[in-house]
């Protein structure tokens, strides 16, 4: 049993670890460790424009390597991190940023989920309010003769069952 649990744990660990390997080649490392750390931070914020769902840190596509080289070139030129981002956005558009900025094109992305949540809460509130029957709306008319007879019959029936 322990063996099986260990195997299961190992399998889970492998599944949850995901793709761990970065596509950055050893030869790409910058001489200055501080610059290299900033470069790696930027790699992870920039989308590989042809793979669409990978950062240029994770992608081994040609264009991702080219973009990494561009990031390093800008860092060497003395750009700050925002300047490097702006430089690349000026060429590829905000789509290259994995963290989408707030702009008219992305309003639906930013405000859509909260709007859906509010709509859901409103819908539930309305639904619940309509469902509750207020006391003053409860039928207060006296029982008709017919209802009285049925009620008596039901009470008798219940008594009979209890005694039996």
């Amino acid at each position, binding site marked *: 049993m322990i063996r099986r649990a260990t195997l299961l744990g190992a399998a889970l660990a492998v599944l949850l670890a995901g793709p761990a390997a970065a596509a950055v080649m050893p030869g790409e490392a910058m001489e200055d460790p501080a610059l290299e750390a900033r470069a790696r931070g930027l790699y992870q914020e920039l989308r590989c424009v042809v793979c*669409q769902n990978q950062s240029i840190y994770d992608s081994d596509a040609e*264009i991702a390597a*080219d973009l990494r080289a561009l990031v390093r070139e800008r860092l060497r030129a003395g750009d700050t991190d925002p300047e490097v981002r702006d430089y690349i956005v*000026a*060429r590829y558009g905000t789509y290259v940023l994995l963290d989408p900025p707030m702009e008219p094109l992305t309003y639906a992305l930013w405000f859509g989920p909260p709007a859906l949540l509010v*709509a859901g809460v409103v819908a539930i509130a309305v639904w619940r309010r*309509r*469902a509750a029957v207020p006391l003053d709306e409860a039928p207060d008319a006296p029982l008709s003769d017919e209802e009285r007879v049925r009620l008596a019959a039901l009470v008798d029936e219940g008594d009979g069952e209890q005694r039996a």
Partner: protein
Amino acid sequence: METVETKRRRPLWPVAIPLAAFGGVVGFLAYMLLLDDRDPTYLPSPLIGKPAPSVAGPSLLEGAGDVTDGMVGAGGPVLVNFFASWCLPCRVEHPVLTEIAREAGVTLIGVNYKDAPDAGRAFLDELGNPYAAIVADQTGAISVNWGVTGLPETFVVDADGTIVYRHFGPILPEQRDELMAIVEGAS
């Protein structure tokens, strides 16, 4: 036995709100997915209306002088075409480019993206060379500066050196007239 209904029936319409929202999302996604002529790799270029980046670099052709930025935006509109010998769609658009350059007299600047120089030259030997100048972009730095995401891509640069249009993918024969109209509008 009959039961007497005492509870009021809950109204059903509020349930329709999240359902309608969900349906809207599904509908939108299905529409974008099934749209026939939508290329998911297409990205609009933010460079339209901006000055053309540099094309300066060594020529692909042996014995030819370096390509300079003076060749773009001087004296009339030019087409800047990014290609490589290993790119099949580039092969497809080559006759159209040749036609545009030879018959319509449009200046064509080529950027040979990360090609083995021999392969690049062999490509032109085989298919003909419609380019006025070709820069060998060995590192891909020129192409990245132009925001190129895939090959081929073609930019129309007007006489002032401003990018007026980007064509994504191969120029198909039926797209030639449209592109020519843009080039003529840029002169």
